[in-house]
């Protein structure tokens, strides 16, 4: 195999080569470096790359470890010692992490090599990665379109073979939605399954770290290394971690999959709907039974999410005060001026908007009407899932109601952007696990005229199927997603970049 073909490998295939000593970790890293240098000017998935530090690690790594010698891209909201951690924000432009997040410690212990930090919506607030203060990441399937977000950098890098796998974070869909829009696999673990220590907090009761990869098996491998209890995160669950690869390859006979009738909304793209319909038939042919279920409070999900997530964000982002780290405004005349201008100059528009909304819903006189009521409706949403999971083993739906939208299309209308998470954010509110797996393509008019007569080329945009499972039932959603994936060849399609 030519060195330049290495970046197209899955993690599982790369490991076979590494363990047979057909390539060295250093050669893998160099091949990836060359690929990134070619593609980065087009896609802009990375915010920082440190090949020198990665090469030192690659030179001494044990390839027999579970992820031995596998380079992993890290969303720039997770602390990697000695590296920048900008969160896509001007306020952290010059920040360098003094420590490793627990997930990074665990990945290193498993032999993985973090080498670069990926672009994202500022503080993970957004669904298109356009809220990054640094740069615009493009969807490798159509450079005029968004990669989704907020983990758009990791999703775009994996889709373009500019990463073997990446970490993202998912607060309302920020792993699954970009995975869907970029045609890769993305997993949001159950709340508490993966440590949040060293993850810069957005909404602490919703945030989870998870993998973005080319295949379901690769995500299971990363979860094997990353999941588990962490004494440094009091919300991490002290439950045993199963081997997430153990159910891969098992069939779906007797598996009951719920189809929520509330998800068949207006505004769902017809090609997304038909791709998911075909995927459901495929799941049936694999032995699964499709069962109608009801999640009656689904329609309230976005409203609940935006009150709770912004409330928690307004408190979490109070730490950015220009005292201990981060940007500080020049020559403040007093302390209020120091705080007010530091935050004005350091934060971008969407972060400001959410701090204002979150502060408002927590403020005296509105706390009960907005915040407490939203918490109560959250409980009803959680109970919807508990009741549904009494009847079914997992729930299936589209991941996103639409394929990748155009850059700039939704930036002027925050509410339209918020609705991008309509099928994903109830999973965060309920604390359950979810995965997005490629399930087809939508054909849309491309950006470039195809020929001299001016007729337009067709772009193919990936569509994602979401599988939601009970809390801590990751092994089952991996089994379902893997069985589906292996019976199709969607995951083998790669964008022509």
């Amino acid at each position, binding site marked *: 195999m030519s060195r330049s073909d290495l970046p197209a490998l899955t993690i599982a295939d790369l490991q076979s080569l590494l363990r047979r000593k057909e390539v060295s970790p250093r050669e893998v890293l160099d091949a990836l470096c060359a690929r990134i240098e070619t593609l980065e000017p087009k896609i802009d998935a990375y915010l920082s790359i440190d090949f020198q530090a990665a090469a030192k690690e690659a030179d001494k790594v044990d390839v027999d470890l579970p992820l031995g010698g596998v380079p992993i891209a890290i969303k720039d909201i997770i602390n990697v010692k000695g590296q920048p951690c900008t969160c896509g924000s001007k306020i952290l432009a010059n920040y*360098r992490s*003094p420590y490793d997040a627990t997930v990074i410690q665990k990945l290193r212990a498993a032999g993985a090599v973090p080498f670069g930090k990926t672009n994202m919506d500022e503080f993970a607030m957004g669904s298109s990665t356009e809220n990054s203060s640094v740069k615009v990441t493009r969807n490798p399937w159509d450079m005029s379109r968004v990669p989704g977000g907020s983990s758009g950098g990791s999703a775009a890098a994996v889709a373009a073979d500019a990463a073997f796998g990446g970490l993202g974070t998912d607060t309302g869909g920020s792993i699954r939605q970009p995975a869907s829009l970029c045609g890769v696999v993305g997993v949001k673990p159950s*709340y508490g399954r993966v440590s949040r220590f060293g993850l810069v907090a957005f909404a602490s009761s919703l945030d989870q770290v998870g993998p973005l990869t080319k295949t379901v098996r690769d995500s299971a491998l990363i979860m094997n290394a990353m999941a588990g209890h962490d004494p440094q995160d009091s919300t991490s669950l002290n439950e045993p971690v199963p081997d997430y690869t153990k159910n891969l390859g098992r069939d779906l006979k007797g598996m009951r999959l719920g189809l929520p009738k509330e998800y068949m909304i207006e505004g769902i793209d017809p090609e997304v709907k038909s791709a998911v319909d075909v995927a459901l038939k495929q799941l049936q042919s694999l032995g699964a039974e499709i069962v109608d279920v009801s999640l009656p409070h689904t329609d309230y999900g976005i*409203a609940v999410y935006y009150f709770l997530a912004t409330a928690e964000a307004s408190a979490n982002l109070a730490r950015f005060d220009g005292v201990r*780290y981060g940007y500080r405004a020049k020559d*403040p005349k007093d302390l209020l001026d120091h705080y007010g201008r530091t935050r004005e100059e350091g934060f971008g528009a969407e972060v400001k908007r959410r701090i204002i909304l979150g502060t*408002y819903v927590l403020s005296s006189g509105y706390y009960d009407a907005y915040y407490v009521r939203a918490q*109560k409706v959250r409980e009803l949403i959680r109970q919807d899932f508990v009741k549904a999971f009494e009847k079914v083993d997992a729930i299936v739906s589209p991941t996103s109601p639409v394929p990748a939208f155009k850059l700039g299309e939704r930036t002027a209308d925050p509410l339209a952007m918020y609705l991008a998470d309509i099928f994903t954010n109830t999973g965060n509110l309920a604390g*359950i696990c979810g995965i997005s797996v490629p399930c087809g393509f939508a054909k849309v008019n491309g950006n470039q005229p195809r020929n001299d007569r001016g007729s337009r080329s067709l772009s193919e945009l990936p569509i994602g199927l979401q599988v939601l499972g009970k809390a801590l039932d990751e092994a089952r959603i991996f089994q379902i997603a893997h069985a589906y994936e292996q019976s199709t060849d969607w995951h083998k399609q790669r964008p022509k970049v």
Partner: protein
Amino acid sequence: MAKASDLDVAYVSKLARLNLTDEETQLFQKQLADVLKYAEKLREVDVSHVEATAHAIPIFNVFREDEPRDWFTAQEALSNAPHIANQLFIVTKVVE
């Protein structure tokens, strides 16, 4: 439930210690009024018998042994500070 029109972005920005330009204030006033209007649907829900959920999983107080362990040196803790002197964070003057 409060009305969307109650939101006063200029006042809330003071609570949040976040200065906004006049343009931002006006823009957010309109955009967040739209969001609040959308969220009025929460009023329809009967929540009279529901306990508020702060977390999706039941979390109780979590304790650990109070033991010394290695952590940042003073230098590491100060490594990202915008202004330091004599191993201290220098802050904007608080009292006259």
